[in-house]
């Protein structure tokens, strides 16, 4: 793995100036099904240890051997729900998605911001306030109340409340309560008159619900079963597997079918887990998770290039600020379409001509706006010009500058994020390298080529970053197809010698580039690796290398779909077992 500082020693000439763009660069960031990103999914980091195309040694063979033994990474066994998971969990558990006491805002809007490490006093207090609001709201609404109380309390209500403790507790804690725990909650019922105004059963029920919602076994996703295997790992119980499944595939709590499978101890084998995973991926909740992953893959989110897209409308009249969320949405629809509707594969992301266009975005694609309405409508573009997501308005606009395209931004995204070339951080001051503007530099390409020709810049730029960026010069900053330089009228040259998986390949224009990326084992492996990190809610780890290799090997298989890949994430050792760091 290449690091900038160590790179100085190993490859001074190379590392002395790889830049990712003549600009500041918004960071990527680690997320998981629990995102919005908790503030510090940290842990072991820095990739799976054998990235292709290492600039330190571009000819180094990549160890992609799938005949390996999967490792199990030590993780926390008591992760707290992220705020996004909290919202979905109370939605699925109780039917609450907005707090009536707080302008119907999502519950997490009042929780403390997601943060790694120990719970803070503000975080704890916010769990209590929100629990109070939810409990009151549930009990005040007969429909919501039915999600909590499955019986009508009669007399002193103790029997019904006891049943509620057992039944609702099972769902809230994602496992049956122990006898001790049931007794603890029963004792609360016995104290009813002291902790409520009148001691009426419904008041006590509200107090019980509040207490479930502030319980560590609800607020965390504990993995506590200590069944050791021979290798020193612990095998998860069926209930813990159910919880992992639902938070991976839905970012939320298990549904009834999954709970039943767990209660029947039918989640012990990979086949049993696969049956559930396939069922769950057909549910609408899975779409949210897949969208969220792809936002991470695309580096979308607040304060990213996607969000900050802006262009000089005197140069790009087809661009409007109002289109920024629309073209982002289009890209998201595209990934959803390929994954679910088409049941497609990784290569479809790079090759499919399907797009979602409305009257406002049609001009960006050279289409007649009068043929489209306000809604984004599925349409088919020219596959010679518009294969895959990298040729859609969203990416092309976001990875451009204000008044011109940025081959560096586009090329760096393709090299680093898609092809996983481990290009380190460039040296200080690199971003201030001026763009030369002499008369002989009559194209953007020539200017950027000259800008990055210094010894400190050229190795990374001329081998890895600029070539894919130059191939993408077929699109202007607003995403329209272009063949001539706007300022000078000079023909645009999109033929390049690009480095694909450590081999130099001559290609011409975006369509040929996309075909190469789609078939690139490096790009496929990178996609699989990012899924592993996302699904397991941690940065990918050298221990994951084998898992990544096996998934990447499958990705190259014809007919292996994205949904196959996601389902296979539940089939690993890491999914069924857990390891404890420094366990005694």
């Amino acid at each position: 793995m290449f690091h900038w500082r160590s790179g100085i020693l190993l490859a001074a000439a190379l590392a002395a100036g790889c830049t990712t763009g003549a600009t500041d660069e918004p960071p990527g960031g680690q997320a998981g099904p629990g995102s919005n990103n908790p503030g510090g999914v940290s842990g072991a980091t820095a990739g799976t240890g054998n990235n292709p195309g290492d600039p330190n040694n571009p000819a180094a063979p990549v160890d992609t051997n799938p005949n390996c033994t999967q490792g199990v990474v030590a993780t926390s066994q008591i992760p707290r729900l992220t705020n996004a998971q909290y919202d979905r969990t109370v939605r699925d558990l109780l039917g609450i998605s907005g707090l009536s006491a707080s302008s119907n805002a999502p519950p997490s809007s009042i929780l403390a911001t997601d943060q790694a490490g120990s719970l803070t006093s503000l975080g704890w207090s916010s769990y209590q306030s929100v629990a109070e609001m939810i409990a009151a709201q549930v009990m005040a609404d007969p429909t919501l109340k039915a999600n909590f109380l499955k019986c009508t309390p009669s007399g002193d209500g103790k029997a019904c409340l006891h049943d509620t403790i057992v039944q609702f507790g099972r769902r809230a804690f994602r496992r049956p309560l122990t006898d001790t725990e049931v007794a603890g909650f029963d004792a609360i019922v016995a104290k009813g008159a002291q902790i409520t105004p009148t001691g009426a059963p419904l008041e006590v029920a509200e107090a019980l619900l509040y207490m479930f919602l502030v319980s560590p076994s609800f607020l965390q996703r504990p993995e506590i079963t200590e069944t050791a295997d021979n290798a020193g790992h612990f095998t998860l119980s069926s209930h813990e597997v159910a919880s992992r499944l639902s938070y991976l595939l839905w970012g939320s709590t298990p549904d009834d079918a999954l709970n039943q499978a767990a209660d029947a101890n039918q989640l012990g084998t990979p086949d049993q887990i696969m049956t559930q995973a396939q069922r769950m991926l057909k549910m609408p909740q899975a779409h949210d998770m897949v969208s969220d992953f792809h936002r991470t893959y695309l580096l979308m989110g607040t304060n990213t290039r996607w969000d900050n897209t802006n262009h000089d409308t005197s140069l790009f009249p087809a661009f409007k600020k109002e289109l920024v969320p629309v073209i982002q949405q289009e890209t998201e629809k595209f990934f959803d379409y390929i994954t679910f509707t088409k049941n497609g594969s990784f290569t479809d992301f790079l090759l499919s001509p399907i797009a979602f266009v409305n009257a406002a975005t049609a001009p960006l694609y050279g289409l007649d706006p009068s043929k489209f309405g306000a809604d984004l409508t599925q349409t088919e573009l020219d596959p010679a010009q518009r294969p895959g997501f990298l040729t859609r308005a969203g990416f092309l606009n976001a990875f451009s500058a204000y008044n011109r395209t940025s081959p560096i931004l586009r090329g760096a995204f393709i090299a680093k994020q898609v092809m996983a070339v481990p290009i380190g951080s460039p040296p200080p001051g690199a971003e201030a390298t001026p763009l030369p503007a002499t008369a002989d530099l009559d194209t953007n390409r020539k200017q950027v080529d000259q800008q990055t020709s210094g010894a400190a810049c050229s190795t990374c730029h001329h081998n890895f970053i600029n070539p894919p960026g130059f191939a993408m010069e077929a699109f202007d900053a607003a995403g329209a197809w272009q063949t001539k330089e706007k300022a000078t009228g000079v023909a645009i040259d999109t033929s390049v010698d690009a480095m694909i998986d450590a081999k130099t390949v001559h290609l011409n224009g975006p369509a040929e580039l996309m075909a190469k990326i789609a078939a690139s084992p490096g790009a496929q492996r990178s996609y699989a690796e990012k899924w592993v990190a996302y699904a397991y809610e941690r940065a990918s780890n050298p221990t994951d290398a084998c898992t990544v290799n096996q998934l990447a090997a499958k990705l190259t298989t014809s007919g292996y779909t994205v949904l196959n890949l996601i389902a296979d994430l539940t089939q690993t050792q890491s999914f069924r077992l857990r390891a404890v760091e420094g366990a005694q």
Partner: protein
Amino acid sequence: MKRRVFLKGVGGAALAVPFLSSLAEQESKAQSAGAPPKRLVIFFTHNGCLTDRWFPTVEDGALPASALSSTLQPLAPYASKLLLPRGFRSMNGYAVGQTIDPHDQAMGSKLTCAKITEDSNRYATAASLDHVIAKQINPGGTTPLVLSVGAASTKIKEILSFSGPNTAFPANVNPQTVYNQLTGLFKASGSTPGTAPVTTAGDYKVARGASAIDLVKADLTRFQALKMSQADKTRVQDWLDLLRTTETGIMNTPSSCSADAAKAIGATDDAVKAASPAGAISGGAFAGGNSAAGNTNLATSFTLGGDMMMNLMALSMICDTNRMLMLLYPGYVTFNWDGIMHTHDHHGLSHRTGDFSVGGSCKVAGVLDMIQDIDTWYAKKYAKLVGLLDSISEGSGKLLDSTATMWLPELSDGAAHNLNNLPIVIAGSAGGYLKQGVAVNVEGKSIGLGNSTKTCVDGGDIGNTGSFGGNLPINKLYVTLMNAVGCKGADGGKVTTFGDFDGTGTTGGITNPGEVTKLLAAG
């Protein structure tokens, strides 16, 4: 006070066990009993400023209101309580080469004086000043109160606080969250401590809360029996400690912490609700899905929300829930409120290009006026906070007097991204520790005002808008502030060092220990 709370993750702090032992006995012994608690407040803004319109012309010496720059005019009423330290630099040469992005480095190293990680998150490799201070001076050693307007974010560009190495401590953005915690502490008006309580709905809530805490403790205690990693054990123990600290905190809450006090400073149920956006807040330049509602919520958060955060900071001081407080304003937003209607976001304007690109020619007409709009807006907000704290009595003085309230910038000039010659102002003396009513040149040689407004007047090249003087490591300011609020060094005496490095050498380390005596009232 629980000793365990104190010992967790000291990460980079120079604390010693003998000192901690004494802390175990009494709450916040770092500060003397009886006198008002000393506090540090940091008001943080991004993207620098037009330095040559911000700095007063007086570089060293008495600072009458008439000497304040045009940008700082809103501070004129408080001139006698201001300290303008001139000549500090943050994040000096040792770590400069870590990343292309000056903002990542400026944020991650700003309050840590440590490097940032090589991970994509670019978080800092050490705990930040606020956490180091909070561990020493906060009741129960609780974490600092870190607040922000705008959307919640875990990105390094908006993370200033780190609870430990590679562990971001993101800001809280909803006034309602803070308010809910404080209202739980309010003393019922008219009740006398020690007398039999009147039975009210609130009393049931207290009893219910106590029962809930028993259940939570039982739940956590069961986890303690498991074979857990040290990190997980610490989390369980910290939660248990939190339950005890909360109980102690409720018992020790000052009688002045009441609904009446909250009302007096404008923190009422209705006002907090109005100041707390109910939906998604736009996060980016004109983003958050760019929905109109998101932009409206952003404007609400910057205006009513930020002002309410100030009220809640004052209330947190009155209730003594926190003595280390920060209020952050994110830098990637387009100002469209309070009569300002900008076309580009603050960050893009600060570059003079309107976007992420740097250098080249000025591309935005009237860019200096727009930056000035923002500088002035922030000066008014800082003055509002200072004025608020100066309006609330505490002991024989005001909240402001026992506090050091510092406006700390991310950068000096936004286009130059320079970190020398930082525009910093501190209001309040932290109980008489700091000089007042003066500017102090800490470097000892002429520093100058920088060149922010020398270019872009008529377009043309941006050039170098920064400056070269003013390079005293900011570590020394932090050491001074730590001493001002009562932190102690390893030997129980004054703090002498903070951070991992303060120089330009190749190996890091602290080369210039000690506080800046020129800044002390006694100095």
